[in-house]
């Protein structure tokens, strides 16, 4: 789960990481009010979960509250990289002397957290890292020991930070580590962390990505989920505990397991078809979950046929069959549905489906072939 900038900054404040004066606004009036309170110069930042927001016009500067009002009028309700702007953050403009990049992230390669810093802040860190890796300092953190004090000095030295800032910088990095651990983050990032004209450190931007698997430990942070950033189908899928991603094709897919779901999509493509979605019902799905999954797919107007491919392991095929039949009880689906059930209780599952209009298939290739063919017939 990605947090919005203003949400991340709220957390920063709780952990004593300095941020600019500012507030969140949802209307032009609020923007005007906040910019009047803050003084003359402000920056208005669209709260959208998209990279490259600055280039797309999502970060704009105003010299007066009047100008702030004009910008807010244009920005609120506009679309930035496909996201509608519903909220903007109004921050006091800070005069910048130096920009630093700072983050702590899960490093898949080392299977440990990694601290990254660079004196080239404010820029796209991935580009810098690729073009000149020596400009980005990386230090692996022992997840059991945590961040050591010498590592803070080591990083400060290696990004050429003046000695007078070592202590203040060290405090910020330590607090950022606390945010990372306490929130079960996968990424905490400040880009840029600036040194102001009056020699203070300040986090101008904030990005936190939380581990969805650990949300049970953070019931209060779950409220932060920005529902506007998801389509309504994806939102419904989340409520039902399904992994669902909308794609461009017309063959709806209901599969157990991410790997098999991806393989199923790949095979559809190799046969000239295209998946309408990725949908993994997860391990051990019961009838209710299967029912919800199938309804989700049938609600997609692009779907011309459905391919149900379940290889039972921890999932029991008879439960899957019951879920499918539940859908048939309430409404007879208008598109052909191809079903392949194998593995745990596969025979029992198929027996339950006998007599229905579902099209059984014996192999994955056969199932994909029929689904692609039926989808083709369904297109007018």
């Amino acid at each position, binding site marked *: 789960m990605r947090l919005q900038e203003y949400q991340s900054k709220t957390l920063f404040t709780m952990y004593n990481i300095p941020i600019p004066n500012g507030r969140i606004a949802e209307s032009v009036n609020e923007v005007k009010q906040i910019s009047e309170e803050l003084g003359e110069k402000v920056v208005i930042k669209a709260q959208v979960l998209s990279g490259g927001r600055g280039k797309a016009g999502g970060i704009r500067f105003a010299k007066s509250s009047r100008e702030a009002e004009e910008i807010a009028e244009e920005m609120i309700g506009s679309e930035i990289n496909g996201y509608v702007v519903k909220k903007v953050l109004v921050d006091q403009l800070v005069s910048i002397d130096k920009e630093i990049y700072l983050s702590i992230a899960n490093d898949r390669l080392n299977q440990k957290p990694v601290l990254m810093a660079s004196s080239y802040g404010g820029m796209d860190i991935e580009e810098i890292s690729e073009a000149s890796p020596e400009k980005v300092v990386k230090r692996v953190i022992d997840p059991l020991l945590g961040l050591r004090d010498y590592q803070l000095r080591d990083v400060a030295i290696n990004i050429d930070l003046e000695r007078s800032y070592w202590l203040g910088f060290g405090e910020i990095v330590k607090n950022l580590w606390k945010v990372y651990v306490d929130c079960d983050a996968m990424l905490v990032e400040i880009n840029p962390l600036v040194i102001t004209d009056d020699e203070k450190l300040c986090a101008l931007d904030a990005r936190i990505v939380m581990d969805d698997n650990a949300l049970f430990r953070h019931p209060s942070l779950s409220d932060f989920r920005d529902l506007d950033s998801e389509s309504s189908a994806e939102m419904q899928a989340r409520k039902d505990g399904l992994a669902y*991603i909308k794609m461009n094709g017309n063959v709806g897919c209901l599969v157990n397991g*991410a790997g098999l779901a991806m393989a199923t999509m790949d095979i559809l493509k190799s046969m000239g078809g295209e998946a309408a979605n990725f949908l993994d019902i997860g391990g051990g799905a019961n009838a209710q979950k299967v029912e919800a999954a199938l309804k989700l797919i049938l609600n997609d107007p692009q779907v011309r046929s459905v391919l149900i491919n379940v290889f039972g392991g921890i999932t029991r095929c008879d439960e899957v069959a019951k879920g499918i039949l539940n859908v048939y009880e309430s409404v007879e689906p208008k598109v052909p549905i191809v079903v392949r059930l194998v593995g745990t209780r596969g025979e029992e599952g198929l027996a339950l489906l006998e007599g229905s209009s579902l099209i059984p298939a014996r192999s994955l290739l056969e199932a994909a072939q029929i689904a692609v063919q039926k989808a083709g017939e369904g297109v007018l």
Partner: protein
Amino acid sequence: MSILVNSETRLLVQGITGNEGLFHTEQMLNYKTNIVAGVTPGKGGDWVLGGKVPVFDSVQTAVDVTGANVSVVFVPAKYVGDAIFEAVDAEIPLVVCITEGAPLQDMMRVRQYLSSRTTRLIGPNCPGLITPAESKVGIIPAEISIPGNIGVVSRSGTLTYEVLYSLKQNQIGVSTCVGIGGDPVKGLDFVEVLELFEADAKTDAIILIGEIGGDDEERAAEYIASSLTKPVIAFIAGLTAPAGKRMGHAGALIEGSLGTAESKIKALQTAGVKIARSPEEIPGLITP
């Protein structure tokens, strides 16, 4: 022969009284897996499945009493870290974690702890292992594989079943199948399992099943090119997956230019690996 589990395996089930734990304990018993104990804190002294398996309160007690040497973990995700630590501290040589959805920072701490220990971890979020006709540890369906000389290692769950099933339909048998799991932070990776297969006299060829995300397949390709003498056939899922979207579980995510199916297929092909375009194509690529 086989790797990691066989008829000598003395299996302990952590979370044996839960829904999934109990169901799959029964399945494993039906396969003649030697299950010696179960653990559920607070239920010590009970017996499950008609008196077939004793339940203990702690892993250490279970090990002391029964000599368990492999543990399979079915506990809910929020307790997974603790369950693995408990098994490691009881010095169980192999821990297989089936549970899906373990918090990543918990797993990073587990990984770090394991680096100074001798316990091997497989998973989390994996289907487990099967050495056909000897031992089944985890949730791989019983009837989809037969004994033979092909080693299988996979990051996926159900996709593995698909491969085993099509091997069996072609009368091709398996030495051991290891599901290493799809999470980004996990125990054994491809290279470590490939090393075990290389050393196993009864494994003549290896099937590797990978998917998008991370660089496990690329590192496996390096190892295959430099050190592996046995032929390898691979299938990689996710050619049609979009970048930046998390496909189902934590592992399957294309980050920037990293971890695409194309890059993995290219690396493996360069290492001399035969690539299958579907799981059902794999049997045809095995040369007897």
